[in-house]
Every structure is written in C-alpha cells, then in structure tokens.
C-alpha cells in the first residue's frame, strides 16, 4: 500500500498525462471532421487487414461446408443446363407446374469410398434414399460420367463405376451421333472401350464421346471421353474403339446423382 502510494506520488503525473492525452485524442477524433475522417479510414484499414488475415485462417475450417454448398448450387445449375430438352421438346403444359418442367433432378453427394484397382470397381456415396437416391440412377461429376447406383439404403448408396466389367453405358460420338456401348475390360483406369459402332461410321482421333440419352439413366450430351484410337478387326462389322475417359476416377470427390423423374414411364414402355 505504501509502495502504491509512493508510486502514485512519484509517477501520478505520467498517468495524468496519459489520461489527458487520451481525453484530447478522443475530443479530436470525435469533434474534428478532418481528423475523424482519417481516423475512421485508417482504423478501417487496420480492421480490414486483421479481418482479412483472420478469415484466411478461419475459412479452412469452413471449407467442407462451403464445398457442400457449392456442390448443391452446382447441382441446381446443372439441372438447368441439361433439362432444357424437355422444355424444348414441345410439351405443352396446361397448368404452370414447375415440377413438371424438369425431367431430371440433380442431387449432390460426396464419394466416401472408391476403388479403381480391381476388375469390378464400386464406389460409395454419403447420401441415400433419404435424399432421393434410388437404384439405377446415374452418377456424374464435373467432368463426366462416373457410374450407376446399384445398392441404396437410407443413408448411403453404392454403385458400379465405369471401371466395372458389368457397367454398360449407352454413348455416342458427339460429332455425328453414331451410338455404341461404353465398357471397361480392366487395366488402365483412364481408358475404356466403346463397342457396337458399325464399320461405316466416320471416326476420327479426338472425337468427343458423350452419353446418348437412349437409356433412362443419363440424359444426352454428358461428357464421357474422347477417341484415342480405333481398329476394325478382320471380318467384324463393328469398330473396336479406345476412349480416354474425361473423368479422373482416381481423384473422385464430389459427384452428382441424376434422378430421371420419368424413368418408370420409359422402362414400362420399353419392356
């Protein structure tokens, strides 16, 4: 206590000095427009700098939710891109029903398990029937076709990827619409085969291959890959085409499940 009093006696004027200067400073920035403008501006610079660095740190924590939101938004945009077919197909709606404007719904999902090393590869998604997924739906990612769902439970879904010998996808050459079947025979996970293309088809190296839209699984025009080579075996009527897949199956993360709202109708008719 004595020391404190001594300290105050000895250095009280320093404290008084600081208090008075703070008071003056407050008065200056409070009542002088020129100084207060600079004060606000420079304090904003400082605050902006701090917030900038703070958010560059904290945004890492939000990355997963951010990418989920982005995936959802992408799914919406994707629906608008591929679904125009139905609106331009001349269908007349008597009632303005937005639900019937779309043939396909796009549902975002994350790949939680994926194998590419076997002969029959599967992947697992973190969404199930509670999010509207069901067996037979196609799966794509930002670059192209991924696979088809084969098992769906409430929370998860499993599918065969295009790197599976049981996977058959109806595809077509984008340039001239010759269609065929995409399949995989094992080996290089970046390459697949396309069969059933007749020998009179005009093929070139580099032709883009897209989904044909004939099946009820994928809408037409989704990227699959490009032709890197083709070959006509003696006596065969069909080309043997090598295709470089546009999807990198080894680094799959976010995918979109395509739900065809009219798949039942198409299946029933084609039975």
């Amino acid at each position, binding site marked *: 206590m004595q020391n404190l009093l001594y300290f105050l006696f000895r250095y*009280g*004027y320093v404290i*008084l*000095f600081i208090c*008075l*200067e703070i*008071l*003056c*400073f*407050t*008065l*200056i920035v*409070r*009542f*002088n427009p*020129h*100084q207060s403008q*600079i*004060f606000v501006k*420079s304090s904003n610079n400082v605050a902006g700098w701090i917030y900038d660095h703070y958010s560059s740190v904290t945004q890492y924590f939000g990355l997963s939710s951010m990418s989920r939101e982005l995936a959802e938004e992408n799914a919406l945009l994707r629906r608008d891109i591929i679904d125009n077919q139905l609106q331009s197909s001349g269908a007349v709606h008597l009632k303005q029903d937005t639900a019937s404007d779309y043939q396909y719904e796009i549902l975002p999902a994350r790949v939680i398990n994926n194998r590419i090393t076997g002969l029959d590869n599967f992947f697992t998604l973190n969404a199930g029937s509670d999010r509207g997924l069901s067996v037979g739906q196609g799966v794509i990612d930002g670059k192209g076709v991924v696979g088809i769902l084969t098992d769906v439970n409430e929370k998860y879904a499993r599918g065969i990827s295009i790197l599976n010998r049981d996977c058959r996808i109806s595809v077509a050459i984008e340039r001239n619409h010759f269609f065929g079947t995409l399949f995989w025979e094992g080996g290089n996970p970046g390459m697949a085969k396309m069969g059933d293309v007749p020998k009179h088809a005009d093929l070139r190296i580099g032709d883009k291959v897209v989904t044909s839209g004939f099946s009820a699984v994928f809408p037409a025009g989704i990227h699959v890959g490009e032709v890197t080579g083709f070959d006509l075996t003696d006596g065969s009527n069909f080309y043997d085409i090598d295709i470089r897949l546009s999807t990198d199956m080894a680094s799959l993360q976010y995918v979109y499940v395509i739900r065809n709202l009219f798949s039942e109708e198409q299946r029933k008719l084609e039975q």
Partner: protein
Amino acid sequence: MNQITRHVWRFLILLLLQVLVFQQLSLAGFGFNYIQIFIYPLFIVLLPIDVGKSWMLVMGFLLGTSVDMFYDSPGLHAAAMVMTSFVRPFLLKGMEPRGGYKMNTSPTPYELGTNWFYRYASILLTIHLFTYFTLEAFQLSSIFVVILKTISSFLASMVMIILYVLIFNPKK
C-alpha cells in the same frame, strides 16, 4: 502582486492575445497557410520551476482547451499543450545550470539569462508546434507539410514571443 494572480493574469492575457490578435493575423490572407503564430505556450514556458508536474499538466490542458474553444478544434491545442507541459520538467532538468536552480524562481531571461531562456523557449515551442501540426494533419503521409509548417510557424511565433518578453519583461 501575488504570484498566483500574476499567472492567472498571464493566462488571460496570452489567451486573449492568441485568439483576438494572432488567430486573425495567422489567417490574414497571405495566401500562405503554413504560418500559425502561437504565443500561448509562453504560459507554460514561464511557469515557476518548482510548480507541481500534475498541476502544470492540468493548467496546460485548461489553456489549450480555452484556445480550442475559439479555434473550433476541440482537443487539438489541448493535446499539444499537455504534451508541452509534460516535456517541460525533463527539459528543465536537462538544462539545469551549474549549481542548480534557485528556490522559487521562474525560467525567465531575468533569472537565468537571455541566451539560456531563448534556447529553452525555442525547444518547448518546437515541441508544441510539431505536436500540434502532427495532430492537425493526423496522418504520417503529410510529414513534410508538418515539418514545413513547424519551421515557418516557429519563426513567426518566436518573433512574437521575443516581443512579448521584451515588452512585459517577466521576472517571476
């Protein structure tokens, strides 16, 4: 005349001189707004040597605030005045003549010599002006303007301070 009354009078005279004469003179439309004549720091300059440090801070603040009232710049002169008052004891200590100060003296030319007084007064005035113009500009980017204003205002103010000291010849 009582010592306190003397300082109260000086307080009032310097304040009135500053706001009635030199404020108008500084703005007298020379088209060169780098000159401000400040005479009121003389109040702090001439306070007795053994006056309490805290008292000096309070008096500096009061005079600065009074000037601010007329200059419409709340806090600006006061901040510079408080700074000047704060520095003065250190300056006095640094400039202490051999043998120390006599009891109950004021730092006047009469007591401590003309040379000593003007050196002492100019240092305090420079500190005051520099603080004032720094706070007036309020940003580091205009440091050259601040220095220019300090120098030009110092010359003008110093002339007025010399005149004041010659006319009134304060002894205590």
